[in-house]
């Protein structure tokens, strides 16, 4: 049995969560949340914490030198720096649209890195 006290990052409310786990590490109960999202976060955070990673990728021939990108969904927290390394090496040619895939299955996480802003080509 263990208790974990967390602050939910699901939304700006920042609920104070209490997550109880049993001896195998499995979550028994989440309290203090005010929505389902909070319970999910609590469960995940003590077993396999994940985060969305946002950064930028260089653009060739664009009106702007870089395009903001994000992981489409969360990736495991311990893969953040590996993901960043891949993002640093990546590049994409203009024009770029929102949602364009910049990196498939980044670092084997099963999650794509996608563009989060449109960058038109330079005239």
């Amino acid at each position, binding site marked *: 049995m263990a208790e974990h006290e967390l602050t939910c990052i699901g*939304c700006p409310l920042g609920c104070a969560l209490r997550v109880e786990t049993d001896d195998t590490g499995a979550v028994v109960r989440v309290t203090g949340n005010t929505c389902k999202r909070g319970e999910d976060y609590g469960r995940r955070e003590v077993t396999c914490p994940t985060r969305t990673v*946002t950064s*930028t990728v260089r653009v060739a021939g664009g009106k702007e030198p870089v395009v903001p990108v994000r992981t489409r969904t969360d990736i495991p927290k311990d893969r953040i720096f590996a993901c960043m390394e891949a993002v640093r090496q990546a590049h994409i040619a203009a024009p770029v649209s929102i949602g364009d895939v910049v990196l498939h299955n980044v670092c084997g996480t099963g999650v794509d890195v996608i563009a989060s802003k449109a960058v038109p080509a330079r005239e």
Partner: protein
Amino acid sequence: MRHDIVIIGGGPAGLAAAISAREAGVEDVLILEREQELGGILNQCIHNGFGLHTFQEELTGPEYAARYIEKAQALGIPAQLGATVIDLAREDGVLTVTCVSRQAGLQCIQAGAVVLCMGCRERPRGALNIPGCRPAGIFSAGTAQRLVNREGYLPGRKVVILGSGDIGLIMARRMTLEGAQVQCVAEIQPYSGGLKRNIVQCLDDYGIPLKLSHTVVDIRGKERVEGVTIAAVDDRMQPIPGTEEDIPCDTLLLSVGLIPENELSRQIGVEISPATNGPRVNESLETSIPGVFACGNVLHVHDLVDYVSEEAEQAGRNAARAVLGQSAETGREIPLSPTGAIRYTVPATLDPARMQETLTVRFRVKETVKSGQIRVLLDGKEVLRRNRPIMAPGEMEQAVLKKEWFTGTEQTLEVWAGPREGGNTNG
């Protein structure tokens, strides 16, 4: 040149105001935007966390902006880019917006109504009177954000952040991800100025210490920052001798507050509230100058863009009503009195005759309130009571008023926040 509604600023507030004004039936809406693209500061806020409230999904800044830009474009709302408003005036009841741009030169535009959506700026170092040298390497967090996210340059490698505003927290993580070492975040207040979720995911995740009740007391370095000294402060925020700690670094980021940008509002003579540094507005978000409305961070600094959009939609709708002659005759103005732990409310006055079915009153508390409660008293009689587990100065609160409460004779309207019985005030 004349337009029914001129929106000054094409960030989240301006976009939402323009869209709602158009949807409320005003064809002739013009957005004036000083940058080369719409979206405002969201374009450099590449992190996620926007739009949960509005779209029930977590978007990045540019994605959130794109939703509104696409909608404005679909509605055919014209926007002049690179157009900076340099003057705003009202003569004989006519509003004139003067702006300059590369393409159109100097233009004097007459407007039926103006919506102020200029946003806010960061408080600079000078305002803090931090002693020390004036080398390169001192940036406001937003300036660093632009350099990193839009230009692709790292402003420094070893960073101290003063102030725990959200932009500072976000930049702590951002620069860490790009290989910089963030030594600590020093916050002079005993509480953080940013959202709790940002403390967790930007500082705790990366082991960056948050030093509450600490400030920077010296900056060293002749040409580039070489280090700073931080010290603990007492409850009057004065540095405590003997607590100084030297931290070598090449960069100091400041995230010490945002100030609504009301230069134009002042030019036209809009009354400014000393509590918000933004215009004093009524229930229609109209300023003391008839026909001039305000919303978003120029009105008061928000934590969440979702609420900026919501507020701006109201302002746009109200501006449309004014232009279309649909505003009810002004009846009486009831002042909203912030009491208890509340520092200010927006709006500051309310005319029940012009109020819609509901009215969202937004406010901030002066100090952290645990086991708190919000109460609304109309002529001393409680009409609303809501419990809040915790209220903090860094997080905006709201109360929704209902038109049905007003019968036409009310004199006082009090919005109160404080600890409920058995609760306590802290800080």
